[in-house]
């Protein structure tokens, strides 16, 4: 009689916030490298990136990319005078009225596994005309399980 072990999972909160100044036209990349032998998946997300102070044109974006190759990604963007604010609880967006966007977000989260070899990169792009001096709050709730050998 064969026995298939039930994968053991746990929930891990991760704070990937940053208060580094991002000059106009530049970007900051926050790469999350899970422990070796572990598989992580985003189960919940909170982001709050205020608009750059003094900006008068352009936009800013927050991209979630699984590194190399960059096939799977999610983009949150806003104009220069608006903040990026998202709350996702268990793959369901609470702030969007657009069901298409909500569906693509859900798809990203459902397949958002990343590991020590395929890391998650969170990229903040400041394409406005002012330096971003405001802190960007990025909180993740990840589901951790053991990676297959």
């Amino acid at each position, binding site marked *: 009689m064969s026995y298939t072990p039930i994968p053991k999972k746990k929930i891990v909160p991760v704070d990937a916030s940053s208060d*580094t100044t991002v000059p106009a036209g530049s*970007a*900051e*990349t*926050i*790469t999350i*490298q*899970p422990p070796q032998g*572990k598989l992580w998946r985003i189960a919940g997300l909170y982001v709050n990136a205020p608009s750059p102070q003094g900006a008068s044109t352009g936009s800013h974006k927050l991209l979630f990319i699984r590194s190399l190759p*960059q096939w799977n990604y999610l983009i949150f963007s806003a104009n220069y005078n608006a903040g990026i604010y998202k709350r996702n609880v268990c793959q369901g967006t609470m702030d969007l009225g657009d069901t298409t966007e909500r569906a693509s977000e859900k798809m990203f989260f459902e397949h958002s596994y990343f590991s020590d070899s395929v890391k998650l990169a969170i990229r903040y792009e400041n394409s406005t005309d002012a330096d971003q001096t405001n802190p960007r709050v990025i909180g993740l709730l990840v589901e951790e399980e053991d990676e297959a050998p």
Partner: protein
Amino acid sequence: MKSGIYFRGKFIEFDPIQLEKGEKCYVLYEPYELEEPSQPDVFIAEKTKEVPHGSGAVIHYHLHKPAPPKLRKILKSVKKEVKAPTNVKGLRNIIKHIQE
């Protein structure tokens, strides 16, 4: 996308997370990775922080600034490439490892 440094006529490729704090490397994007052709495709990435997480994870922070156009041309024309092992940390060690 590839990242690394230009050293003695070769592009030494490695992951920016292998940098130590304050060190820099280049990041080059392929045209299909850009949202618009007018976007800069070569950046200078500087490691600003490395934060260990209680779970055993590590969070790496890098600032990316567009590289000057002259530098972009030089980097895109380099043909010789060598990959550094992923377990080597710091520019000095990466170069030392490649030279051995």
